[in-house]
């Protein structure tokens, strides 16, 4: 007899399958409460690392007070664990995940986020991020600005050797900047951070001078931000971006570890550089393993295959925290999420409307939902990580208050319409928000949509694949409202994101133009006296908080998952901590 598909046996089989499936899907079994989203790949295209482009500004005078005149640069952090865990031991391999193949050239247009980690280990820069994020010595031992602020002079070490034995000299700095960064045709990534640099000249083999087109206080900090120095002799007459033996093979490097092997799609294995100028590193090897899936990364951290990683999917934090073999540590980031209301839309040019948005959106609830509480509402672009500059008392506080939002909207001329949606001049307050599918943006936008609905604003969501989203919103500026974030170097110079000159084509995404804000931005950009600069930053912070060029959302924290045996990792976000791998050690 043939079995009809409605036969009780096939129904029972289906039921059995469902029960088994349900049992397997129980929270105890799955590490993440959300299934691995196909749209949540560890970033292979650059979105996480977004260096700034420094714009133009007026010249100023006054000597630098950021580390100057051979004053001691900020010391690298003394890892607290080292004191607690005992004496560092030599040996061992540390493995950390990356999402895709790296390009081992920090200036290459294909150097996306996975390359950042590798390149910060391989290539030293003139400065590195220090404690309190102030620039610390690396290839340069000290630096100072000229009295007119139109140049910076860096004194270089004379004891650095490249991995092929050649000495590092000023000529390598010249090659990196004059031949690569400032070369328009090459379109080096990150060149936008150095638009104020006209050229670099060698005063002598251990001294270089950056000649500027306008004062640039943040230069030492920017030189610590994905700005590795490359060896001239390794490239000879080769186009530095077509030299695959270097970029995709075995580069000539100066850092504490050098490339031993690279297998596409699999890993980059670095081995200790015994001749490293900062002293012999403790670890034998540092492996960057390609693990594209976020859940697999978590599983590998728990099984010990990975020693240290960033927990992108914070929903899994509770499960990871309960594991004995790892510790979870929050880190400060120089990053803020924002909602950009396109200033070409007349509805958004009224500051009361922008403020209403900030009051209407329950940012703390979003932080709890998408960051599991690891974040803080933001009311300006100055991040709390800048402990020298950030002062919350200068923020306007936009704590969640829908009634206040409604009042502000009413005062701006918006009255509730027949269907509850606000109206003005017969037009409903309705628009579309473009959502890029990456990270936490989708759930964030959904929450915002609900918050806005509660005050009578109808925001429709248009979710887009990331690459297309960038083209539409960032390249073409064809959008009304969108949520995104900025990551920037460790300095409060945020001119490129807010200046009028950066509207339209530059990084001023909302297109906000305000001469008063420009003046404040320029002051911060050009002031070299630390005390005066602090005041300038305070003024800037207050003004941008009150006027909301972007509707500031929140400052996220990074969660690092670190194996219990791994010691010596400083209290910095993982990208910055990569500058200290020579201090990491494994407890046996």
């Amino acid at each position, binding site marked *: 007899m043939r079995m009809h598909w409605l036969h009780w046996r096939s129904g029972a089989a289906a039921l059995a*399958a469902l029960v088994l499936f349900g049992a397997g899907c129980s929270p105890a079994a*799955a590490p993440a409460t959300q299934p691995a989203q196909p749209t949540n790949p560890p970033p292979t*295209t650059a979105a996480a690392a977004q260096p700034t482009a420094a714009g133009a500004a007026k010249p100023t005078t006054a000597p630098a007070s950021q580390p100057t005149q051979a004053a001691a640069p900020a010391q690298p952090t003394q890892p607290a664990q080292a004191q607690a865990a005992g004496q560092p031991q030599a040996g061992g391999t540390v493995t950390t995940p990356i999402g895709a193949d790296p390009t081992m050239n920090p200036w290459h*247009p294909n150097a996306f986020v996975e390359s950042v980690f590798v390149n910060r280990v391989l290539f030293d820069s003139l400065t590195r991020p220090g404690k309190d994020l102030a620039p610390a010595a690396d290839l340069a031992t000290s630096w100072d600005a000229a009295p007119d602020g139109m140049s910076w002079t860096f004194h270089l070490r004379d004891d650095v050797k490249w991995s092929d034995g050649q000495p590092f000299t000023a000529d390598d700095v010249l090659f990196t900047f004059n031949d690569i960064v400032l070369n328009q045709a090459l379109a080096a990534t990150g060149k936008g951070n150095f638009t104020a640099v006209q050229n670099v000249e060698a005063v002598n083999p251990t001294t270089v001078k950056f000649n500027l087109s306008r004062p640039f206080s943040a230069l030492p900090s920017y030189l610590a931000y994905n700005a590795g120095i490359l060896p001239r002799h390794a490239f000879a007459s080769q186009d530095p971006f077509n030299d695959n033996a270097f970029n995709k093979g075995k580069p000539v490097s100066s850092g504490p570890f050098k490339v031993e092997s690279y297998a596409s799609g*699999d*890993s980059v294995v670095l081995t200790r550089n015994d001749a490293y100028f900062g002293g012999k590193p403790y670890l034998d090897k540092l492996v960057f393993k390609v693990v594209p899936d976020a859940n697999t990364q978590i599983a590998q951290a728990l099984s010990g295959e990975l020693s240290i990683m960033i927990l992108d999917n914070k929903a899994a934090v509770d499960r990871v925290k309960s594991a004995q073999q790892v510790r979870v540590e929050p880190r400060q980031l120089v990053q803020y999420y924002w909602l950009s209301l396109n200033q070409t839309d007349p509805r958004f040019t009224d500051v009361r409307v922008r403020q209403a948005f900030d009051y209407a959106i329950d940012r703390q609830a979003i932080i709890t939902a998408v960051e599991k509480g690891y974040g803080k509402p933001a009311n300006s672009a100055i991040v709390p990580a800048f402990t020298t500059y950030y002062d919350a008392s200068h923020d306007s506080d936009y704590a969640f208050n829908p009634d206040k939002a409604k009042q502000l909207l009413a005062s701006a001329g918006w009255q509730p319409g027949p269907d509850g949606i606000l109206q003005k001049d017969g037009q409903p307050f309705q628009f579309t928000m473009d959502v890029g599918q990456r990270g936490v943006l989708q759930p964030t936008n959904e929450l915002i949509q609900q918050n806005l609905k509660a005050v009578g604003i109808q925001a429709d969501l248009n979710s887009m694949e990331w*690459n297309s989203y960038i083209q539409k919103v960032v*390249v073409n500026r064809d959008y009304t409202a969108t949520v995104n974030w900025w990551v920037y170097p460790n300095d409060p110079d945020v001119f490129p994101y807010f200046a009028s000159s950066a509207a339209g084509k530059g990084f001023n995404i909302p297109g906000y133009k305000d001469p008063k804000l420009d003046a404040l931005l320029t002051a911060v950009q050009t002031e070299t006296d630390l005390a005066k600069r602090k005041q300038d930053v305070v003024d800037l912070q207050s003004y941008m908080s009150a006027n909301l060029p972007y509707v500031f959302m929140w400052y996220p924290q990074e969660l690092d998952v670190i194996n219990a045996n791994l010691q010596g990792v400083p209290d910095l976000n993982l990208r910055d901590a990569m500058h200290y791998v020579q201090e990491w050690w494994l407890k046996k």
Partner: protein
Amino acid sequence: MLLLVSAITFLLVNLAPGGPASLMRMDATPEQREALSLRLGLDQPVPVRYVQWLGGALHGDLGTSLGSNEPVALRVVQRLPNTLLLAGVALALSIVIGIPMGVVAALRRNSVPDFLLAAVSILGVSVPAFWLGIILILALSVNLNWLPSSGITSTAGEGGLVDRVQHLIMPALVLSTTVLPYVVRFTRSALLEVLHQDYVRTATSKGLARVRVVFGHALRNALVPVVSIIGTLVPRLVGGSVVTESVFGWPGMGRLAIEAANGRDYPLIVGITVIVASVVVLSSLIVDLAYTWLDPRIRLA
């Protein structure tokens, strides 16, 4: 035919919204994008670019990958063997496990084994590969520490046969779940059809042992439709490999294709498509050849 595939693919990807990842960075300035566009040859119209690509392709030069600056052929050659290995083992597992399961299900029709196998088939079709992969990783790698959770070998390039087999087991199993249920069900129904044929009744009434009837006569005929189904499952393996390779960090073509698509790496996308199309054509050819071996009545035309 490959020409048509390449032309259509080239046209479609270049017309898709978005652009090469190196241009679609949030930290790129308009000047950088323009300069890069020039360097990558993207300032020229699409038909001109296609002709240039074709000229190179006919000489074996599939162009340069935008995402890594390496030759497309090199990138594919680095990854293709890994996917062939994974898909091949998954297919072999499906055949070796699936056909016997289908035979058992057919012979023990409507009994407990058949019922269980039906449940397994439904499970196999329903369970998403990424979920199964993660569950297996959690169970076998994290909790029990029996198997490694990603990669081809423990340290790149090295690793003996045992190490490689350990790395291969879980991804191959997970990938095989995308085709195993079909093999089981089709074998079952094909064999059931054949078992009702006159010649089977004749053989049984002649007094042949059941085993001989089934394995000597019926199965061989039943396998003809099964082989054709397997032929259509090969593309499914290629597609399923994308998810499996991502979960298990397997450096294969599936993952390369996804990265290329996300990053609008035009030469690489077209190169992969052309090569995968060739592989599919080749597998169809092999299936046709298998027919003639299985069923002498079918001759190569």
